[in-house]
């Protein structure tokens, strides 16, 4: 199925969880936060949230700031 990851369309396995998606893309789930269709996914729930066709996922991290 197709989803959007950080604005780009990608192909992923059906019923993939947010945690699996992060692992596939090398995002350490302790250092990044996932947002699915504008919902911030708590770290405790990332293995339970299953993605579906057309979902928009954003992976967020810290960057330098004042």
């Amino acid at each position: 199925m197709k989803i959007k990851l950080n604005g780009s369309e990608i192909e992923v396995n059906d019923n993939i969880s947010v945690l699996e998606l992060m692992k596939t893309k090398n995002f350490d789930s302790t250092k990044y936060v996932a947002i699915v269709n504008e919902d911030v996914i708590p770290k405790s729930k990332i293995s339970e949230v299953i993605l579906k066709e057309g979902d928009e996922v954003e992976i967020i991290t810290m960057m330098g700031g004042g």
Partner: protein
Amino acid sequence: MENDILVIGEVEIKNRLIVGTGKFSSYDLIPEIIEKAKIDMVTVAIRRARDGIQKPLIDYIPKDTKILVNTSGARNAEEALKIAKIGRELTGSDLIKIEIIPDTKYLMPDNREVIKACELLANEGFKPFPYMMPDLVSAKEMVKAGAVCIMPLGAPIGTNKGLVAKYFIEMLRNEIDLPIIVDAGIGKPSHAAEAMELGVDAVLVNTAIATAKDPVNITIAFSKAVEAGRLGYLAGLPSEKILAEASSPIDEYLLGFLRK
């Protein structure tokens, strides 16, 4: 000085110099600065991750350092709340620096939206650190809305102009019963000492450190200036006078001896 510990939102901040992590030529400088200047709290922003391969900023921040996420990018209170929720997931901390800046030329914070954000975020369990234009009426509203400290600007972000807003910051110091952190505009160590001598509780420096020729040593200099300013304030600064006053008044004997 030993018992002079700063506590904001139930968190102890051991060094009154808080350092921003923006604008560094390399993240490699950050752990060195934190270690050598004994920095206890840093600020960070959040953004979309480029990929999972590049080492993220969090890997450069020593584990026991307190991380204060800012809401930069927010133009109103609702956007600040969205960023705060992401920040809390990243750090596991309720501390959040509210930064709401609709103006791109002078980067002026929108006090009205910051007041709204303090209330919105405090209701969601956050401990707001509001970055604000030093204005006593707004600061009082922020206190009422649940802020845990007040962060007035010294001068606009990145200008290195020092305490342009000094008189208004003094007003906050005299009237606000919460910690005050001077944020933005601090361009050199003497500015930081000057702020601390006013009796504010901490200063936040980013641009002046990140863009210095030697960021590590300037952080140490800032840290010493903050400590000196704090000690000076606690010791009690003398008042200024218009007329001169001799340090060693001449006694009558000497006067007679000289004028004979």
